[in-house]
Structure formats: C-alpha cells, structure tokens
C-alpha cells in the first residue's frame, strides 16, 4: 500500500546561532544569524522518505513563510522529497494560523499521513500538529520515537520507526512520554509529530541537490486560502532572560565539597 505523505519544513534560526533580543524588544537581532530547516522537520522528512522507500508512495513537503522558505523546501527535495508547496506569508504566524493553513493543504492533497516536527525551535510552541489533528478530526500521535537507539542496527539499515499495519490502513507509533515509552495505533489518515530519537536525518547528496532544482514547487499566497491569517497569540514584546551569575572555579574536589557543604549548604 503506497503512502501519500505531507511533511512540513519550517525555516528557523540555526540552533548554533547566537540569539539576542533587540534593544526595543520588538524582535531578535538577525545580523549574522543563519537559517535552516527546523531540526525536528528534518527528522519528519527522513521518516517520510524511509516509509516511501519501504512502502512506496509520495512525499510532499510544505512550508509557510516568505520567499526565503523556498530554501527549506529545496533542502527537503534534495533529501529526496517529491514536490513542494510554498504558502507565502510574511509576518507573524501563530500555531492556530499555521494549522489552519495546513488544513487547507491537507484538504487539497488528501495525504494518508501528515508528519510535522514536535516543536519549532524558534517559537518553541509544540502545538501545530495537535491543533491540526483536532481541526481535521484525525487521530494524533505526538512525539514519535522508536525503541531501538540511534546507534542500533535498525537505524543503520535506515528502517522507519513508524510501523505500517499489514492492511496498510493503520500505523503503530512509539511515543516519548514521561516515565517511559508508549505505543499507540492510529488508523490512517493521521497526524504524527516527531521527536529526536525517531531517526538520524540523511544529508542531501550532490545529485540529490541537482535533482531538487527541477522538482515542482507550487507557490500559494496565504491570502488566497480562505483562512483567517490574524494571529491569536499576539507577541507584545520580547526581553532577555535574567542572566545567571556563574564562572567561579574551584581548585579541587575538597574545595568543591567544602563549598557545597558549608557555603551553599546543599549537601
């Protein structure tokens, strides 16, 4: 049973970049900041590719953002995704609006499976997949992981962590939750959000990058989708977190113990 999959690729600040708040609290300083695909979304793309390699099907990658988000779509295409959808939207976007836009794409594309990252590492919301699932009245399996480690043989063989049932209509998903791992089974179509231990995303190959340039990417203006685009989570201002005073070094274990025992009184 081939699977049609819709996967999201958000453009975010590179996690290695230094992030600082502008003096007036209106945003972050973007000078010298690099951008890339949200790391969780890379994992979602990788999983979709593995599922396709195993079961056949199609991987459609979607991003909502300005023209520059084309870079992230091309990155996913270079990894191996089949085609792209760029929903052009400048300015503030909250998870409700993102989910509303993705719902329209789902209605157009009718995928069997929608895969998103569990969280965007810029806004750190962890909401879009859950909202989308509710708005579609689809089951959800968030924080998808697998029991085998990222150093396991299964991972080396690039096997998917999501397990498609024999009838091709159900998916078993292992979820990272508090106190252990949970397994749920969702009938398709379903929404899955992925966590860090699901897989190690592949790097795009040179031929992959060349091929990606020729793959189809449809551009859709957000304003034409019939969705209310005004954010309902309105950011009023940003500020820097309180700085932590550290930097004191101790000479040896004896001094460390003495400080913890007598000064901090924590042991």
């Amino acid at each position, binding site marked *: 049973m081939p699977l049609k999959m819709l996967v999201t690729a958000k453009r975010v600040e590179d996690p290695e970049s230094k992030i600082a708040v502008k003096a007036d609290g209106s945003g972050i300083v973007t000078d010298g900041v690099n951008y890339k695909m949200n790391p969780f979304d890379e994992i979602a793309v990788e999983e979709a590719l593995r599922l396709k390699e195993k079961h056949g099907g199609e991987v459609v990658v979607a991003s909502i953002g300005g023209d520059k988000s084309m870079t992230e779509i091309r990155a996913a295409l270079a990894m191996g995704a089949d085609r792209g959808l760029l929903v052009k939207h400048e300015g503030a976007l909250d998870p409700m609006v993102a989910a509303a836009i993705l719902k329209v794409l789902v209605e157009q594309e009718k995928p069997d499976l929608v895969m998103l990252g569990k969280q965007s590492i810029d806004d750190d919301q962890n*909401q879009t997949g*859950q909202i989308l699932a509710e708005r579609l009245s689809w089951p959800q399996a968030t924080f998808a992981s697998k029991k085998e480690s990222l150093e396991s043989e299964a991972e080396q063989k690039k096997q998917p962590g999501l397990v498609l049932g024999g009838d091709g209509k159900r998916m078993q998903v292992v979820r990272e*939750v508090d106190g252990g791992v949970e397994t749920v089974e969702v009938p398709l179509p379903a929404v899955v959000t992925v966590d860090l231990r699901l897989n190690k995303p592949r790097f795009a190959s040179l031929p992959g990058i060349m091929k990606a340039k020729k793959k189809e990417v449809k551009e859709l203006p957000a304003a034409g989708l019939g969705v209310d685009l005004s954010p*309902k*989570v309105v950011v009023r201002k940003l500020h820097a977190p309180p700085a932590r005073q550290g930097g004191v070094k*101790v000479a040896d274990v004896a001094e460390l113990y003495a*400080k*913890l*025992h007598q000064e901090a009184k*924590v042991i």
Partner: protein
Amino acid sequence: MSNVLVLAEQSHGKLKKATLSALTAGREVAKRSGGKVTALVLGKGAAQAAEELAGHGAEVKHADVPALEHYLAEAWAPVVAEVAQAAGATWVVAAATAFGKDLLPRAAARLGAAAATEVLALAGEGASVFLRRPMWAGNVIAEVELTTPVKAFTVRPTEFAPAPKAAGGSAAAVAVSPPAVQTRFVEFQEVKSERPELTEARVVVSGGRGTKGDFKEVEALADDLGAAVGASRAAVDAGWVPNDWQVGQTGKVVAPELYVAAGISGAIQHVAGMKGAKVIVAINKDPEAPIFQIADYGLVADLFKAIPELREKVKASK
C-alpha cells in the same frame, strides 16, 4: 465571568505533582479575573486522584468511562471541551508535561481557544492577563496576549509553587458523553526507577558525552545524594540512558537545589533545561567549556577521578 478549568494528570489514581503547579496558576488567573476554579480528572483511577486534589482545596470533577481508560488526546480533548463549556470556563490550564503538551493544544483547538505553552509567569494587570513564555531555547522571554474569547495555557511546573494542602475542597463525578475514538492504546513501557522523579528531585546529577557511555559514577553519586539522574541529548541519542532522562529545551526542565553536570559541555539547548537550578556544579575536563560560564562551582577535572573523590567526601560526612 472568567472561570478556570485546570486539567489534572494522574496515573493509577495517584495525582501527578505538576498538577498542583497548574492549580496555582489557575488560581492566579481566577483571582485576577474574578472567576472560580474547577479541576478535572479523567481516566482510570480518576475518583481517587480527585480526592487527593480536593485535599488541596480544589473543587474537582472526575469522570471515567471506558473510552477514557487510557489517556489518549483524541478521546480526552472532546471531554475536556465539554466540561469546560459546562463550567463556563474561559481559561483552561494544564502543566507542561508530556501529557499537558499533547492534550492542551488539541482541547484548546476544540474550544477555538488560542494557547500559550510552557508559561513561566503571568503579566498584565487585573483581568487582562498576559503570559510570559520562553522562545529560542530560553534565549528570549516573550510576553504574549491571547485574543480569543476562550484561552488556554500550559505552565512550566518549576515556575509555579505547588498548591498547598487546604480545606474546603470537594470531589464529585461528572457525567460526560463517551467520546468516539479511533486511536488505540497498545502498551506503556515504563522506565522503572527507585530514584526520585527528575522534575521533582531536590538534587539532579546529569551526565553527558564525557561519560563515554559509562554512567556508573554519575548514577552512584546520584544515589549517594538521593538524587535523580539526568542526561544531555548526546548521551540519550547514543542510547546510553533512557530518553526520558534528557534535560533541556526539548527534554525535561528541572529546577533542583543542586544540579551537577558531569561531562556536559553546556550547549544552550541543555542549559535551557537546568538554568533554573539554585546551585549548578560543572565537572568538565575542558576549562573552556561553556558550562563553566553558568556554573556556581566549576571543577576542571576528569569526571572519572573527581566523582569517586566527591563520593568519598559525601560518605565520610554521613
């Protein structure tokens, strides 16, 4: 009127402590907006957990129908929405645990409510409640306003004191429509541990890539101190320790009295999960490791030498 519904989390009839932090936040909202707080406990063991929560002065409703036996967001969200509407709730609050993160956005969407996650504090004045939450791995704190009629948020349990025991609470069953559910719970593989829960422990000892996969010393020090064990993403990704030990931006957030980071470099994503600790100790071979910038006591040393020595000192004082 602005009533507040607090979503409780329980397992086998035992209330999760994080719920008491959500209750505190819910009470703050209610106080400012002039409404009352109701708490909701669902699933197997709900009645028992509801009694426990009532012991903290809360008015608690509980329900347990077959479709709610195991927690599943798809099944619980419509029930939460139904109870929220019946209670006239304009705010829905939960703790930012794996449960709250999974359920609250879905329940909020059902209510047409905008939601904020991992809230650190309330801001604004009187009934106009704004919420402070971290972004970019805690590099930035944002003040957000939710503009929908019904609003929802999850709170970071380390930032709101647990509601103390108090009189005046009550627990009562509430009738709910059995939800239609397509998701099937298959199994839960618990990571059994005699140690305190990571997010609730007074002391946390964490290991990173510097352990090279040998957590024996880290775990032994934790046991000597009655501590929980944590880890960096690198240690978890390598499969050395369970996933649910990961501390950081995308793992658990802890705020113990003492946090010991051994063989952890101090990447911003890790620091996001532990910088709320009262005292931070770093043990690292590399004097330039960024972890030393935030450590109250930094020791440049090989963890395999330093930890056994530290354990000797701890034992000698007992």
